[in-house]
């Protein structure tokens, strides 16, 4: 049980990285990028290709792929997303759905249908583990991936809080027109956000390939998991995204204890429960009622007693 909780916690780091890109793109550009999971798979296959063809270390290959993914993000924003943004909310959905299909088939055409992994290229690290007190076994790679996730999210948070670009991204996400009236160039901000989002997708895909297998048509499942982490953690907060990822990972790990199919099912059920709770709270709020029936804020209780 404790082992499952720890595994779920560590899995949450991966989900957080995957979800952060999706959340960033939605927060800044208001685009729900349905190709996000497929872009993650592109990143994974990019690292796999460099590792297999040139014998590079997966970590070095990842360092080379990430800037390329960022450039892909800029190109997509410049030549695809920016054009669809002018046509309302439906067109970006259709376009990113189509982009996802194109990426899946392109990957299938280039790499075939075989599932691939970076496990062999990682060597001992792929199965190395630490034994904690109580005989609990924790894999080294999941811990490293979790640390990377926390470091990346912390770096992003620092960038958003303390840099010129970060403040511009937050301003454009909050109110694009007011940001323009402050001199913020929305085009550049959108490209920067797309670059970060697609690079995060690529990072998530590569990290997935290190601890599991990836295949060309695996993008939609990753997209669903990213969505679930974002909804559970709430849009607009990187730490919320991490929390959402961790809760999703823990739910899946506990579900897997119950049955092999329970891994995915438990995650979906948690997602539905959180979504339902959010809708319930919103409904109650619109009616001017407290979040739970009969619940009163402590101050309100005191006032009633007085």
């Amino acid at each position, binding site marked *: 049980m404790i082992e499952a909780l720890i595994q779920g916690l560590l899995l949450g780091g991966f989900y957080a990285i995957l979800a952060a890109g999706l959340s960033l793109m939605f927060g800044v550009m208001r685009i729900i990028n349905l190709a996000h999971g497929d872009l993650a798979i592109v990143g994974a296959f990019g690292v796999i290709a460099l590792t297999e063809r040139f014998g590079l270390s997966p970590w070095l290959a990842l360092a080379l792929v990430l800037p390329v993914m960022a450039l892909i993000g800029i190109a997509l924003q410049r030549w695809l997303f920016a054009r669809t943004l002018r046509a309302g909310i439906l067109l970006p959905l259709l376009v990113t759905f189509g982009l996802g299909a194109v990426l899946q088939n392109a990957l299938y055409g280039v790499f075939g249908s075989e599932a691939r992994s970076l496990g062999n290229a990682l060597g001992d690290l792929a199965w190395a583990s630490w034994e904690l007190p109580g005989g609990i076994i924790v894999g080294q790679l999941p811990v490293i991936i979790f640390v990377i996730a926390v470091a990346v999210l912390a770096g992003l948070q620092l960038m958003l809080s303390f840099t*010129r670009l970060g403040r*511009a991204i937050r*301003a454009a996400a*909050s109110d694009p*027109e007011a940001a323009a009236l402050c*001199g913020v*160039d929305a085009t550049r901000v959108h490209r920067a956000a797309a670059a970060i989002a697609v690079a995060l997708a690529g990072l998530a895909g590569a990290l997935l390939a290190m601890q599991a297998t990836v295949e060309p048509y695996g993008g939609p499942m990753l997209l669903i998991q990213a969505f679930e982490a974002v909804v559970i953690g709430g849009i607009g907060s990187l730490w919320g995204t991490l929390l959402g990822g961790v809760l999703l990972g823990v739910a899946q790990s506990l579900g897997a204890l119950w049955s092999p199919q329970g891994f995915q099912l438990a995650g979906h059920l948690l997602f539905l429960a959180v979504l339902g709770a959010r809708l319930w709270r919103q409904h109650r709020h619109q009616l001017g009622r407290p979040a739970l029936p009969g619940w009163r804020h402590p101050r309100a209780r005191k006032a009633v007693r007085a």
Partner: protein
Amino acid sequence: MSDTLLEVQGLRAAHGQLVAVRDLDFSIARGEVVALIGANGAGKTTLLRCLAGVHPTAAGRVMLDGTDITALLAHQRVRRGLAMVPEGRRLFDDMSVRENLRVAGDHGRPGDWTIQKVLDALPALPPIIDRPAGALSGGQRQAAAIGRALMTNPDVLLLDEVSLGLSPLAVEEVYRNLAHLREAGRTSLLLVEQDLSRAMAFADRVLCLREGRIVLQGPAQSLTREAVTAAYFGVEADSPTEAHS
């Protein structure tokens, strides 16, 4: 360098089929304070939004310091020295007041205004500088929005609905802040104001809009309240009236 800083020639703007601004011509001199008055729907906000570049113009030209800026986007106009405090203030509520100022300082035109100078010029700001913008009162929000616009180092500052929704005390505070700016004399102001008395008392010149046209303009000191009220409500003929001092 001419004394005319902002010049509007034949400006026309619409919301779909509805023409909101009809072939306007006017100019604002360097350091001048102009009040734009008119009833609801007269086209005041649309005019300001056109000047700021956040509403498309159907025809006409906007010249800033002799340069045609009609084709420029909003952020490009800001970098040429034209800033706007929009209706509703539109602060970034999740950010502190300091961060709001820094966004404008980061991306606006380089110049003399710094956060410290803005705090000196707007006495309402120092106590709230590190508070989230979403937690401010109406008057504080207006002061923060003016400060944010100043951080872009504007030559022309457009202020929409200066006193809308503010308590009388907050309005006093905002106008005290604007008076500080006026004394500095570096920035021309074009402000939309519903309060006729205050507009006429504060501005050098008054422009009255009705149905998208200028129906009265002239130095504030030379206009009578009766003339302004008549133009405002359309009691007089529609032909533009030029008051002479």
